[in-house]
């Protein structure tokens, strides 16, 4: 035990003095997540605000034929401007992307309206183009509203209450809480935490085998009167400490960053206070051992530092796979998922952020299963550290 501690202390000291290790553990991992996250949030915020607030310029053919409609659109923040020359030109303009949407008012419009027969107007758009489609739908909504208003006026004129046209009154009750809406977007937080955790220990994991070998310090080390198990345990221990540090910093930096993000405007209030941060740390902590063991294991098969770096970047992606699959299929947390490391942490974190009750049995399974895999891989690492081929 004393030997393990000596190795541990030396590795920690050694790596605290290494700018690259320190940079990835203390800066890269913790900063990367919040920055990327803030970027995505701001992007989606901009888009949603854009829709309601920005004045839409709508090219209209035959503007002069429907002055009241144009006035109504104006009240809906849609400015009618002169459109292309004719229908063919309009279709062409939409096809080429010159205009997103063109409204076409035929010469017959005024007469049909006066005769109270359905007055035809045409809305030209490309529905395959999502951006244009949003504008088309906004225009369509405005036209529908104008349609209802005209209908109501006509019924009034005939002494009929417009409510006869509304046999149903549909009230939508949205049960999603503001915290719940955050979960979708905040679901990607868990990956940032896993990423930061792994990054924190990456260079230490490489150093334990490939690094020591490349530097020529492995052979003298192995000729000392200590067992290789003691060496590898000390090294994995040091790797874990750096990973824990990186995880803690990343959680705290997220906690701080969320305060500065205008999430309320998106109707989100993530539940990520100091208490949740602490619980999240404890929840992700078992993953540290597993991550350290996996990285050390992968690095031990490589011939050089560079090769180890290449392989470990693959390891950084691996934990996203289960998260990605479950997110795509929008599966609810189930008992079976709790046996899968990284996935179980993700699902439990999402529940916490949504401010939903967390199933204690699920937590227990997640912790036990992740620790089990961590211990198993550590054992395999130690076995591999004993083989002769380690010297390369």
């Amino acid at each position: 035990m004393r030997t393990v501690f000596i190795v541990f202390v030396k590795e920690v000291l050694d790596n605290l003095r290494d700018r690259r290790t320190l940079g990835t553990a203390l800066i890269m991992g913790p900063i990367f997540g919040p920055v990327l996250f803030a970027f995505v949030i701001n992007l989606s915020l901009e888009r949603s605000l854009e829709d309601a607030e920005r004045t839409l310029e709508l090219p209209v053919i035959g503007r002069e034929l429907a002055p009241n409609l144009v006035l109504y659109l104006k009240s809906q923040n849609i400015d009618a401007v002169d459109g292309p020359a004719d229908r063919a030109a309009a279709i062409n303009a939409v096809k080429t992307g010159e205009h997103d949407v063109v409204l076409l008012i035929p010469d017959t419009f005024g007469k049909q309206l006066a005769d109270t027969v359905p007055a035809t107007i045409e809305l030209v758009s490309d529905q395959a183009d999502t951006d244009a489609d949003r504008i088309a739908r906004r225009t369509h909504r405005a036209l529908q509203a104008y349609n209802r208003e005209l209908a109501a006026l006509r019924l009034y004129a005939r002494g009929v209450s417009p409510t006869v046209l509304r046999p149903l009154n549909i009230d939508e009750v949205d049960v999603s809480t503001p915290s719940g809406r955050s979960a979708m977007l905040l679901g990607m937080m868990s990956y940032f935490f896993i990423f930061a955790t792994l990054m924190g220990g990456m260079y230490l994991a490489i150093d334990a085998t490939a690094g020591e070998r490349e530097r020529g310090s492995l052979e003298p080390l192995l000729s000392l009167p200590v067992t290789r198990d003691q060496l590898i345990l000390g090294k994995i221990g040091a790797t874990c400490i750096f990973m824990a540090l990186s995880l803690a910093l990343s959680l705290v930096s997220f906690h701080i960053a969320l305060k500065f993000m205008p999430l309320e405007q998106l109707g989100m209030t993530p539940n990520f206070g100091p208490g949740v941060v602490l619980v999240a740390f404890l929840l992700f902590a078992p993953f540290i051992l597993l991550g350290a063991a996996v990285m050390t294991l992968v690095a031990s098969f490589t011939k050089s530092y560079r090769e180890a770096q290449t392989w470990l970047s693959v390891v950084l992606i691996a934990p996203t796979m289960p998260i990605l699959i479950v997110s795509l299929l929008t599966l609810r947390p189930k008992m079976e998922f709790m046996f899968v490391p990284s996935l179980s942490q993700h699902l439990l974190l999402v529940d916490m952020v949504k401010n939903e009750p967390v199933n204690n049995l699920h937590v227990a399974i997640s912790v036990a299963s992740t620790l089990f895999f961590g211990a198993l891989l550590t054992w395999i690492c130690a076995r591999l550290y004993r083989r002769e081929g380690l010297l390369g």
Partner: protein
Amino acid sequence: MIKVEGIHKSFGKVHAVRGVSFNAPDGKITGLLGPNGAGKSTTLRVLYTVLKPDAGSAHIDGVDVVSEALRARRRIGALPHGSGLYPHLTARENIAYFAHLCGLDRSEVDERVDEIIKLLEIEDFAERRTKGFSQGQRTKVSLARALVHDPQNVLLDEPSNGLDVMATRSLRRLILKLKDSGRCVLFSSHVMQEVAALCDNICIIANGQVAIDDSIDGIRKRTGCDDLEDAFVHAIRMVGNE
């Protein structure tokens, strides 16, 4: 005292060591001499227990290097070929790390590290981080690291590689000091003159086998060559012709 009996070691199809036997007594310097790739390093690696022999046995002060590897390691100080240091640690920290790992008491470590720093004349750069050290400085620190627990048996794999004249001289002085204090020194080299200048016994290895194991005079006699270099070439041919 080191005793090697008929060790074999293969790496895949390469039969690197084919039945090497020799003795290296206390208070003597024994040289493993041979061309590159002769099996010197592999033999030494078996002795400092990072490799297990396929056949044969080796004992350090009577301790078997395979069945009692940990006990054997306590009795040796090894300088593997191309030993590296931890660049972010100072020379002193590098040495102290090994001292701690060798099981020295905390109080003992400082004292012993000071001693070895003095012995190897590395006071001037002991407090500096080893990043950017010259080859000579690195070898000295590696050697200090290997000797810090005061081992009875010292194994040096090509220690003079890349050293300048001054550094080689101080290395030689140190090896002679170790001999005078009754240590068993075993070192490998491919440089004839170096081995001739230091060794009491020379074991010439070629092609994974021992060509000759004798004193310098004995080798001269047996090969019939007065010049040591000729004797060396002659001995290597003897194995090659088999």
